[in-house]
Each structure stands twice: as structure tokens, then as C-alpha cells.
């Protein structure tokens, strides 16, 4: 679809200090946005231009960023995407799934619906061309190195296919000649995203070996034997693994067992699980700036703040985006990502992944 965004030159002109002074205190963007959400100088909006349903659960959205600088990304990076649902903007992280360096300066994300995924379910059901989203700058360190490795192994499970698909597509687009093994685990053949394209790449490119394993249809799980069978040498190949915790942990075990952990890059595609002792889910949480105290129920500080009627800024809800840090003035919290406890007073913590252990006071 055609997208009417302001040209970079016009955006630059409108953003000059004279117009900003006239538009104070709200800013030029704010006025333009009253007319059209994508007529903005603020560069955090994108418009959905195409919607392709890949499987019963997965949908690919093509995004035209208002600021096409955002189309510059490294394969493997993600965007924080804000979607307004019933008046509330929900922000989640989605990996970019298209090849880097597209001439049309668009981005693609592929969203897989899952049962407790409110945003992914909504996007699968309701996303249409014309939908306006907010997007962050592409971010993340799980990226293809600019010096392309001689043998690259891309391991993924479920929706974890999206960042490695971007890597594969980028390599194919740049006619990379090195060896690539693309090993993907899906539960069933019906759930395989990008099935046709993967089959084509496998046929057309001798250097690329695409292997799909369907675990609910008798397929095996990741093991050293499987790697040996595929002629993958962890000591020689550079590997990327992305997906559910079990798969990523298996990859870590294999690579680190052979002393090759520095040749493996991983990304979990699941909010980390919280492992809290029952007696720690007690005490009181004080949201000092709001004058509210609640009983600690063992959930994250963000969830408990929201349950108390507060609405602190938050983003990915999985410890990635750093939208939510707040100052903890006292108490111990468990960092659900690292599994470590911290009792330091006056420290900034990400409240979306911090679980209070006993009494905690927060500057919120």
C-alpha cells in the first residue's frame, strides 16, 4: 500500500528551532500527528503495509518506518513494537525476520501467536495494512558478525526462527558462498514458518543445508549425535541458537561441554522463569512515591505495581528494553534473568524481571 509519510527533507525543515518554538510546549510532531499519525517528526512510528499469514499461528507484518534510518539493522536484531489495544499501548519485542539492506527500506517482523500471548494473539487476529505501530531502534547483540564465518550453524526452535531467518535471508541475498547449516525444530510440519522459502533456498543453494525436525512427529531433540550426523564440528563452526529454554540450554551444554562456548551465541525466546522460595514471597512492597503498600505475592514488581493500580512505564516485560528501571531504596530482589539476588540499597532495577524477596521499598 502507499504510505504518506513526510519526506526526510520536510521533516528536517519542520523540526527546526523556529517551528519548535512556535509549537512549544507540545512540539511540532504533536500538531502534525493530530492530522495524520504518520506525519510525524518523532521517528518512532511505523505503518503496516502488508500482512501475510504464514501458518495458523504465525503472521508476517511488513513495516514502513516513518524514519527510514530505522530500516538499518544487523541480521538477528529485534524491535520493541508498541501496539495500541483497547486504549492501552502494549510493547513487546519482535525479531526482524527479513534480510538486512532492503532497497525498499522496509522491515518485516513475524509474530507467532501463543496462548497466553495477548499482543501476539491480537496482531494475528487484527493486524491490517494501515495499522500504525511504534517501533524502537533495532537493538540486540545476537547478530551476524560482519566477517561472515566459513561454516555457520543456525539453530532455532518455534518462533525463534525469526532472527536466524533474517541471517539466512541476508546471506542468500548477498550470495554468500560459505557453508550454512540451518537446523530448525518445530512441533509439527503445519507449524513450520517460512516452509516454502526454506525448501527453495535448500534446493537453489548448494552451500546451504536446511534441516527441519518435527519433534511431535517423531523428530529427535538436539544432541551431539545429531550434530555429528549433520557433519557439524562445534570446534570449527560458528553457531547461533534461538528458541525455547530447553533447546537453547541443550545447545549451550553441547558447545560448552566441548570447550567451544565462545563459538556459540544464544537468545532465549521466552520470559525467564521465576524460581522463588515460598517463604520469600512474603513481606510488604512499598511504592514510596505513591504512598502505597501491598503484600508481596511473589510476582514481579511491575506486575504487583500494576495490580495496585499504578502504571509505571514499561516495555518488553522480559528484561530487555530498559524502559522500566526504578530505584530500589531497600530490600532484596531476585533478578529473574540472571537468577541472582541483590540486597544493595539505592540501586536501579528493572522492575519487569525483579521479584521481591521479603520487604522491598521502591521509588515509584
Amino acid at each position: 500500500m502507499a504510505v504518506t509519510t513526510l519526506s526526510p527533507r520536510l521533516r528536517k525543515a519542520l523540526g527546526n528551532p523556529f517551528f519548535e518554538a512556535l509549537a512549544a510546549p507540545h512540539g511540532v510532531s504533536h500538531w502534525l500527528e493530530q492530522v495524520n499519525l504518520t506525519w510525524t517528526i518523532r521517528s518512532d512510528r511505523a505503518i503496516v503495509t502488508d500482512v501475510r499469514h504464514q501458518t495458523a499461528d504465525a503472521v508476517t507484518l511488513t513495516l514502513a518506518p516513518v524514519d527510514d534510518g530505522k530500516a538499518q539493522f544487523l541480521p538477528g536484531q529485534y524491535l520493541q513494537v508498541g501496539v495500541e489495544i483497547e486504549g492501552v499501548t502494549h510493547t513487546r519485542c519482535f525479531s526482524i525476520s527479513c534480510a538486512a539492506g532492503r532497497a525498499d527500506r522496509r522491515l518485516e517482523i513475524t509474530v507467532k501467536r501463543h496462548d497466553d500471548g495477548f499482543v501476539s494473539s491480537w496482531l494475528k487476529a487484527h493486524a491490517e495494512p494501515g495499522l500504525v505501530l511504534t517501533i524502537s531502534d533495532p537493538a540486540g547483540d545476537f547478530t551476524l558478525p560482519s566477517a561472515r564465518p566459513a561454516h555457520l550453524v543456525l539453530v532455532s526452535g518455534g518462533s525463534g526462527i525469526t532472527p536466524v531467518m533474517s541471517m539466512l535471508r541476508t546471506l542468500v541475498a548477498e550470495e554468500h558462498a560459505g557453508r550454512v547449516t540451518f537446523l530448525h525444530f518445530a512441533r509439527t510440519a503445519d507449524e513450520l514458518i517460512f516452509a516454502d522459502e526454506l525448501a527453495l533456498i535448500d534446493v537453489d543453494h548448494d552451500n546451504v543445508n536446511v534441516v527441519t525436525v518435527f519433534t511431535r512427529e517423531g523428530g529427535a531433540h538436539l544432541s551431539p549425535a545429531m550434530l555429528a550426523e549433520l557433519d557439524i564440528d562445534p570446534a570449527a563452526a560458528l553457531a547461533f541458537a534461538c528458541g525455547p529454554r530447553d533447546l537453547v540450554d541443550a545447545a549451550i551444554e553441547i558447545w560448552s561441554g566441548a570447550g567451544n562456548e565462545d563459538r556459540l551465541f544464544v537468545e532465549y525466546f521466552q520470559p525467564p522463569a521465576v524460581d522463588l522460595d515460598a517463604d520469600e514471597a512474603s513481606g510488604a512492597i512499598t511504592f514510596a512515591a505513591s504512598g502505597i503498600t501491598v503484600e508481596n505475592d511473589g510476582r514481579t514488581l511491575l506486575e504487583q505495581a500494576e495490580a495496585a493500580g499504578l502504571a509505571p512505564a514499561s516495555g518488553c516485560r522480559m528484561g530487555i528494553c530498559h524502559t522500566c528501571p526504578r530505584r530500589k531504596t531497600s530490600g532484596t530482589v531476585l533478578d529473574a534473568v540472571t537468577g541472582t539476588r541483590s540486597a544493595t540499597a539505592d540501586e536501579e532495577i528493572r522492575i519487569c524481571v525483579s521479584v521481591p524477596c521479603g520487604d522491598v521499598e521502591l521509588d515509584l
Partner: protein
Amino acid sequence: MTTNPNPTKPVPTSHRIIKAPIIDGKPQLTESQLEALGRELDAIRERELADLGEIDAAYIRRLVRIQRGLEVGGRASLFLSFVPPFWFLGAAALGVAKILDNMEIGHNVMHGQYDWMQDPALHSANFEWDTASPAEQWKHSHNYLHHTFTNIIGKDRDIGYGVLRMDESTKWHPVWLGNPIYALLLATFFEYGVALHDLEVENIRTGDKSIEEAKDLGRVIARKSGSQALKDYVLFPLLAFPIFPLVLAGNFTANIIRNLWAFMIIFCGHFPDGVATFTEEEVANETRGGWYLRQMLGSANLTGGKLFHIMSGNLSHQIEHHLFPDIPARRYQHIAPEVREICERYGLEYNTGPLRKQFGTVIRKIFRLALPDRRSGRARAREVSTAAA
């Protein structure tokens, strides 16, 4: 904070009217009555919070659109003010736009009433308003100081804004003979009064605030006030070059309209007759129920139509606003009958009246407190009863 496991289910209440003894105009509720009062109000709060959604989001966005439309219309009209009716139309539209921006939009957004939307443009952390006072500063003095320490003498700096004598607890001095003049000046230049209010000049004098701190703050205030003045008194007039005096005068008038209106509405919130003030001793060890009680006794409402409520930023529901400062103000109107019913049941006065009556008593108080205190009948009666005991 107590939590009601089922927010949609009202908390059962007894309908027996509680006749609390009244001392110094303040009903003395027992601890268990205060606790029950707190529970009832918490239940309303949780019910409203659970119900927030698309309708509130649509409301505030519609209001923002109307406000921006009025502002563009007003400024455009002033550019045509070589035809006289356009001058009046433009100044009025711009004045109304500034009132909406400051009150129903700015004040309420900066209270965090729409933070749950997670829309950066309507989040209390980011919003900036069309007035001299910087948002960040105002949020501290208003959301924290005024709303936490409402009507506590010596702590709530909104009592008289540091320049008026609005309570007998401020000792009379001949300087207060000027009270009505100071009030008129404060009303006319209210936006600057609010901005300078944050400097806490009186605390610098007493040493509670360092001069460096005040200087930093002064710079922030000067920057914000400066950018406001630059826009209204330099840039827009210059754009209309041949008729720049007309545009300048129109913008000035719009700011004064907003100042007078905001002053009037805000002073009707806490200064009409019958509104209680509190001493620090009275509120020592205050419970949540006690805090609610103080908000109810320390605030007054205004009656009026829907448009009046919007134009007042729903501060016409000052009582409901002080009970639930972070619930979208459009909801106060429908919470009000419940709050009123609770007041009646607990024997509390629900202070409300039309603008002319409420503001009339405020003006009377401004004049009365300009003069030395006469001993009131109540104080005399108390002395007599103490002597008898």
C-alpha cells in the same frame, strides 16, 4: 492499602447514619469508622481502576483534538484581527484552548490519570503544558506536596500560595491589609504565581532550602516561562507583522482569561466557607481512612453543567479529585453521588454550591482576613464551655 478481591462487587455497608461528635467543625470518627470509610472509598477506587479502557482513551484524545483545533482556530483568527470581530473571537478561542490545555488535559494527565495507556504523549512523565510553570516542578509541588498534605497548615503550600492570608493561622500583620490587592494580582498573573510558588521563597528565608537549589530551579522556571513568552509575545506577533500589536494583545488577553478562570476555580477548591484546615498534631499517625476524611473535609465542589465541569478540568469535583487524584477526571461526575451518600451516612458535610456562591465566600474570606481577627462566636463559645467544665 486493602484489596477487595472482587472489585465489581460493592462492599456491603450498613445504612445506619453515624452521628459523629463535631469538634472545631470536624466530625470525630472512631478508628473503626475511619477504617470502614477507607474500605468503602478503596472499593470505589478499585472498581474504577478495573474499568479503565478504550472509552477513557477516546475521551482524552478527543479533548486534545478539540483543544488543538481551538488553539489553531484562535491563533488564525487573531491573524485576521484587522477585522475587529476576529480579534475577540481569536482571543476568546485561544483563552479557552489554554484553559482546556491546563485543566482538563494538563492537570489531569500530569496526575497520571492516563499513564495506564502507556502513550508517551499522554504520560505524566512526559507531558508539558501551555503555562509558565515547568511540568516537572509543578508535579512535585502539586501531586506530592499539595495532594499528600492537603490543608495541613505549615505543610500544604497551596494555602494562600505564600502570598495571601487565607487562614487565621497566619498571624495578622498590617501588610495583610493588601490581601485583596494581592489576590487580584495573583489572579491576573496566576501562571507566574504558580511558577514562582515552586521556588519556595519562604523556605530559603528559613534556611530549609539552599540558595543554590533555588537558583537551579529558578533557571528551569525562567527557561519554561521564557519559551512561553517567546511564542506568545514575540514569534506569533512577528509572523503577523503589520498587525503585531493586535496579535500580541490577543495572546496576552488569552493568557489573562486563562489566569483569572484558573484562579477562580482553584480557589473554590479549598477556600470556600466550611472547608477545614488541619494542624500537624491533628494528622499525626493518620490512617488511610483518616487521609480520606481529611481530603473530604478539606475540599469543596462546584455545581454546574457538563461543559462547566470540562472547563474546570473537573476540579468542580474537587472532593472526588482529592479522594482519587489518579482516576480519569471524567469519571468523577458519576462517582460523586456515591461519595455524597457516604458523606451523609458518616455525618460529614459534602461542601458544594454554584460558582457565584462558593467564590463569593472566597472573596469574603480574602477581605475578612485582610483585617485583624475578631474573636469568632465559636471560639467564644468554646472558651465558655471550657470554663464551665
